[in-house]
């Protein structure tokens, strides 16, 4: 049986991690879309940045966010002794 207090602390950190990730998630997609036309004045390697964020930038960040989430949460499981027995 897992102690209630351990679980509460684990869950608090999990929640914080969730909020941080979803904040970045919202910024790179909705935030970038809102300012896309000004971002478009920056052109790198032929790519107007506003378009680029929508076509490739945001989804690259999504992949990195999921990678980070996996690493962070897997560590958190071990830290609180809540990982599965292997």
């Amino acid at each position, binding site marked *: 049986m*897992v102690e*209630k207090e351990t*679980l509460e602390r*684990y*869950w608090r950190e*999990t*929640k914080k*991690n*969730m909020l941080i*990730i*979803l904040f970045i*998630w919202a910024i790179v*997609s*909705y935030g970038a*879309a*809102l300012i*896309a*036309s000004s971002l*478009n004045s920056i052109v*790198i*390697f*032929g*790519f*107007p940045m*506003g*378009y680029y964020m*929508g*076509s*490739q930038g*945001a*989804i*690259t960040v*999504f*992949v990195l*966010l*999921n*990678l980070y*989430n*996996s690493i962070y*949460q*897997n560590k958190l*499981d071990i830290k*609180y*002794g*809540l*990982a*599965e*027995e*292997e």
Partner: protein
Amino acid sequence: MAKEAMDAWRAKLRKIYGIYTGVFVLFVVSLWIFETMGLDPKFIGYAFLFGTIGVYAAIGIISRTSIVAEYYVAGRKVPAVFNGMATASDWMSAASFISMAGALYLQGYDGLAFIMGWTGGYVLLAVLIAPYLRKFGQYTIPDFLESRYGGKLPRLIGIICALIVSLAYLVAQITGVGIITSRFLGLTFELGVFVGLAGILVCSFLGGMRAVTWTQVAQYIILIIAYMIPVVAISYKHTGVPIPQVMYGQALQVIEEKQKQLKDDPKEVEVREIWKKRAEDLNQKIKALPDSWAKEKSELEEKIKTLPSDDLKRVEAEKALKAYPKTPDEAKEKWTADMKTAQGMSKPPKSYVQPPTDSKGIINFLALTFCLMVGTAGLPHILMRFYTTPTVKEARNSAAWALFFIFLLYFTAPAYAAFARSEILTNIVGQAFTALPAWATKWAGVGLITIKDLNGDGIIQFAEVRIHADAVVLATPEIAGLPYVIAGLIAAGGLAAALSTADGLLITMSNAISHDLYYKIINPNISPSTRVKIGKALLLVVAAIGAYIATYKLAIIVELVAWAFSIAAATFFPAVVFGIWDKRMNRAGAVAGMIVGLTVTLYYLIGSRFYGLDWFGIKTIASGIFGIPANIIVALIVSRLTKAPDSEIQNFVDNIRYPKGAVGAGKEE
């Protein structure tokens, strides 16, 4: 499973799929060699169709099973990487593979809502849902709803929503299979549907989730290879560098520059005026319905009566009468669509890279992106996949892998679109009609590309070129001057995308009826082997219904798929997420939320599509933007006004929040 056994299992899988990939590449290369030696393209098409379906069938037969845990959740021993691939191909349908690049081509920035929307949902899945669902460790989403909220009602609502969401989606996949097989192999649409259906059923019928999983991995490998090769080639042709994802910036520059030139070109303006006049004429005709419909019909009939039978004009009139709308209502639908096309063509091309400038456009863009993201994280056939991993950790990791595998295709699609558009702008526009390249003539023949000399000057204007969304991916091999074997590869890839999604949907629907409805509600006393048998029988029934509907070729099907996202977003997503993250959420709240979410979404979907309903200018496709908050608000209010869930449920929620003690892999359940 013990750690050593798991490692050996992973190594074995890597080896099998490594060899499989090698064999597939060899298969493509040898077909290409045969082509250069003069093999008839028709046989290349057959080789791809029967070769790939044969492989899927073989996997289905090898994976056959009648054990419950194997049948429903593949024994819970699908490692993260492989579950990621299976999820990716389960997720990417014919729409992602064939139509998405075309949508980008046609819509410019607006089309990016699909890119972000269909990937952003995986962040929600990984962070909010996947690991907890795995810890819960049952078989379906209605299972979760009943265990978390108690009673049969949440389960029943879950079943109804799962069936609504999946059916339209399934019909669209079966239609996709029919189109691909008929276009590339010259089979009739109906025959194509049944050949494809055989490919779908041989997997799911014999081995349930286990066979579907291992087939989906195989299908992912084919579809990603098929998607990459043509665009790499076209990038090499245009820029000299075979990395399209990096090089299409140049194409974007070409597009913007060319489109600027075309804006005030007198010939372009002339053609746009013709379109404008057409739109006005159609508008007049729509206003004068039903008289205009009857008048035009009788004119055609009159012509056929009076003209001699060998007159060309008479043949034309007969053709026109055949295609003529059968009823005034049908005429209204068709003419309105034509009018919208004409109106669109009458405007100068808008910037390819600029976001919408009016607030309505921006609101719709954001709303659609949001609905697609939330809907992705609420689709039952995707959620189900996270029950199949060996551990909670691997469920979490597999959501990350799934996004990575989807990313490979989505990261490439914008390059496809940009290269195609710059090709049209530079190599087609401004040419004489007599100098059209062969591929343009060929795809014009099947109606995917329409090029007509509207102003009669013999030169192609941009406003005279109309391209169907599917043409971008399908015609690229020929645009790039690649051998026919690549066209066959594209067909095999599109088929893999459609079949893998259809498999996942079919099993979701059959489980909703056999497991959730029959076993859990009607007759809990049946033996495990009978459960699996009933599930298999239902697969056949559902597949037959899906195929039957597909043969009607309803135009609305494509739209209905988009509806599925809004419905899933407004029903499953809040109920599942609240179930994990909000301990205070109870049955009354979740049920009320789902019912209100579903009702509001359906009301707006149907109202805005058919009866001119309009809230804040939101388009039909983004209807979930009203249903999602309605569900959330109602659920929160109702749950706070009613009793908190008992301690047993509270413990249940605590228990799914951490990984330790999850149901193990490979257990007989």
